[in-house]
């Protein structure tokens, strides 16, 4: 995938971004509880920020700023095909400006098209626990895929569990995935998501307020969450225990006056304590992609695309019967029993329905309807 390199960041913003990265290790020491708002700190002016974060070594920090060769930095960024946009440029996502402490600059790897889409289409953040249950993973995948197919950029944090699954769903729905990292956009964290990361880079964009090469810090995760909340018109929490980083994201979204939604979970499940708590406090309950689209665009304004764009339901009655049965039953035998077909005929129909995009495969076999 060839991406047009774009550096659209003014000197002060770029300087600020590198200053934050330079002082990142010190910020960690300042915050005893990383969930505590780094917001106040990041919102300070350069002078106040250096005074607060650097303390006695403020002179060193200023020396670092003095020594920064921004043109060389820009060249280095283009060399690694990184994007950089700042608050004062036209490419900066406008919704992000509403944050109390918007990042001075955003660094990205991926397609510039994705950045543009973030300005034109309302995005949705889909976030949740790293330890997802199969139920949570299923919902996250379906939401990612449905929103992606409906043309809504899906923002998440590349974390294990819900985040990764939502990204994956979005990719499978041929949507636009946006991963916001707590480290430089070229650092794959967690490393287990290397392949997913590559796919997101190819199809969408990976963003961070930290320049390439920065490692993640404990404080940078909640800081990253504020960017996710800021980029998205709406934040959907799929599964979250208490306390949880996803709840921090939801809190940021609420502070911004954006819609917060949650997927109902079992009341006895610890995975669902956070999401059910959000619902109790008035979050929008989400049971399907339609719920999110209704909230974003108004009821019935935008529908998820039909099973597949240019094909209607399968014409052959046999295929349609199998598709309907597959929606209700998991096993081939039950589908065969319901439709009166032999196992071989059922298998053949399932294979064809999957090939033509009506069905998708679940973990370890079984099918479900493709996201609409």
């Amino acid at each position, binding site marked *: 995938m060839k991406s047009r390199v774009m550096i659209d960041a003014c000197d002060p913003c770029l300087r600020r971004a590198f200053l934050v990265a330079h002082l990142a290790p010190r910020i960690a020491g300042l915050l005893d509880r990383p969930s505590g708002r780094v917001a106040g700190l990041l919102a300070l002016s350069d002078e106040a920020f250096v005074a607060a974060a650097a303390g006695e070594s403020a002179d060193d920090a200023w020396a670092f700023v003095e020594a920064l060769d921004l043109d060389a930095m820009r060249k280095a960024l283009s060399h690694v095909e990184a994007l950089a946009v700042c608050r004062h440029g036209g490419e900066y996502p406008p919704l992000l400006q509403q944050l109390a402490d918007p990042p001075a600059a955003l660094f990205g790897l991926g397609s510039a098209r994705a950045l543009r889409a973030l300005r034109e289409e309302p995005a949705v953040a889909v976030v949740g626990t790293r*330890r997802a249950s199969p139920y949570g993973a299923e919902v996250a995948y379906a939401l990612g895929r449905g929103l992606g197919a409906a043309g809504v950029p899906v923002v998440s944090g590349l974390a294990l569990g819900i985040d990764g*699954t939502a990204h994956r769903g979005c990719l499978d729905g041929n949507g636009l995935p946006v991963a916001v990292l707590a480290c430089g956009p070229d650092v794959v964290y967690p490393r287990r998501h290397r392949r*997913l990361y590559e796919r997101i880079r190819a199809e969408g964009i990976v963003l961070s307020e930290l320049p390439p090469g920065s490692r993640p810090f404990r404080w940078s995760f909640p800081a990253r969450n504020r960017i996710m909340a800021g980029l998205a018109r709406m934040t959907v929490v799929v599964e979250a225990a208490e306390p949880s980083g996803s709840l921090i994201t939801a809190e940021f979204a609420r502070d911004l006056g954006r819609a917060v939604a949650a997927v109902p979970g079992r009341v006895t499940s610890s995975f669902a304590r956070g999401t059910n708590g959000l619902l109790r406090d008035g979050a929008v309950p989400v049971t399907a992609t339609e719920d999110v689209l209704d909230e974003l665009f108004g009821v019935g304004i935008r529908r998820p695309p039909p099973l597949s764009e240019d094909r209607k339901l399968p014409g052959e009655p046999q295929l349609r019967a199998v598709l309907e049965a597959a929606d209700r039953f998991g096993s081939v035998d039950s589908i065969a029993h319901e439709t009166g077909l032999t*196992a071989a005929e059922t*298998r053949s129909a399932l*294979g*064809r329905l999957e*090939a033509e995009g009506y069905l998708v495969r679940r*973990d*370890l076999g079984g099918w479900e309807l493709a996201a609409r």
Partner: protein
Amino acid sequence: MLAAVATFALEGIRSHEVTVEVDVRQGVGIFTLVGLPDRAVRESRERVRAALQNSGLEFPRKRLTVNLAPAHVRKAGPSFDLAIAVGLLVASEQAPADELERSALCGELSLSGELRPGRGSLAAAVGARSAGYARLLVPVANAPEAALVDGLEVYGIPTLARLADLLHGRWMPDLARPAVPDVRDRAHEPDLADVRGQEDAKRALEIAAAGGHNLLMIGPPGAGKTMLARRLPGILPPPSFEEALEVTQVHSAAGVGNGRLATERPFRAPHHTISPQGLVGGGGTPRPGEITLAHRGVLFLDELPEFGRGAIDALRQPLEEGHVEITRGQRMLEFPANAIVVAACNRCPCARPPDRCTCTSVELSRYLRRLSGPLLDRIDLVCQVDAVPPVQLVEEDHERRMPSEVVRARVIRARERQRARLAGTGALCNADMDGRLTRSQVPLDAVLAARLLTVRGTARLSGRAHDRILRVARTIADLADRDRVAVSDLDEALSYRLDGWEAIAA
């Protein structure tokens, strides 16, 4: 005086010729055994002494030297007893040597002089015939098995005394008749018709049998995975005579046979705690492992993720090449290992139904990661085996339940089609086809190519997954008696594929 007697020693599942040379000369009563004997062979001195004396024969009180040639090969086991005893008889001039021309003999002696049955007599017979011997003398109980080999006279000998009579020409046993094939009552064999429901799994078994494909069954405990796997040998074509001989030879060498020609294919289901050596063979004196015992039959690996990494990795060579090579010292043994592997696992570590599953994605991906590896690369088919809902049991049409015999007839026809088509390619069934052969055997017309292209777009098939699908599609077409793969065959094959796990397990 000097005597030389031919015998055959088991090595792996084959035998090699050993010449027992006996030298008897005047001197103090000393009995020396040389030629790399192991403990059991060295102890044969005591058995031979007692057996001779208890048979009314004389144990020469002279200087006795026995050499087992070739001297550089290790000798193991008690099967040299008979040859040593006969060598002593001849060398001490208690028996003439004429009858021993062109004869080979093997057997273990009891102290009373009776011959005990041993392992590997079929291998000995095969070895004796190819070494050009006309006769083989073995314990009575082993004679029918050894007589399976054509072009060799096999005689069953009850006792050492009788053998002495034979050497003197005073007694002649009847020629041993080949073991009556082990015709088990089909009514007691597990039959597919016993299984209620599970039509999907039965279909998968039929395809596996027809094309020799390895199969993975996924489902909760108690849904019937083992029961289904046990029925796979019964729908495979009955072994040909050569295959039956191979199976019998392996089982005889491992000591698990019943001395008759095997007419059914073996089914082996090792427990998941098995060691790599137990699975593929090995040990100080190498013995065949489970994959070899399942040769020409079915190896069932229940609870696949619980098997040790080493054991599963060790299966790589046999699954790819159809045999196992084991090197011991300077010698390399080769065990045949051509079996259909049926593996089974749960859907997730907690094994509860999906709506009550408590596994987290981390646990699930760890579980799936344990599943992946060399074995999954060789699995062509995957099917789900779920507990049959009661309503289906009640409504099931009993007439529709297919007995194994009917399925087997279809499998045999499909195999014949494959044999005819694959003649001269080195492959015997569709599962044997490598990538290049698959592509030449399954030409893609426009419709098939278009379907594969659609799937490629959505599922990102790897090249290997692509070939697997085509192989299975070819088998499905063979079952339907079609010369060309129809698009419905391809669709069905697509539904059995196993891929996309890497992403989940990542």
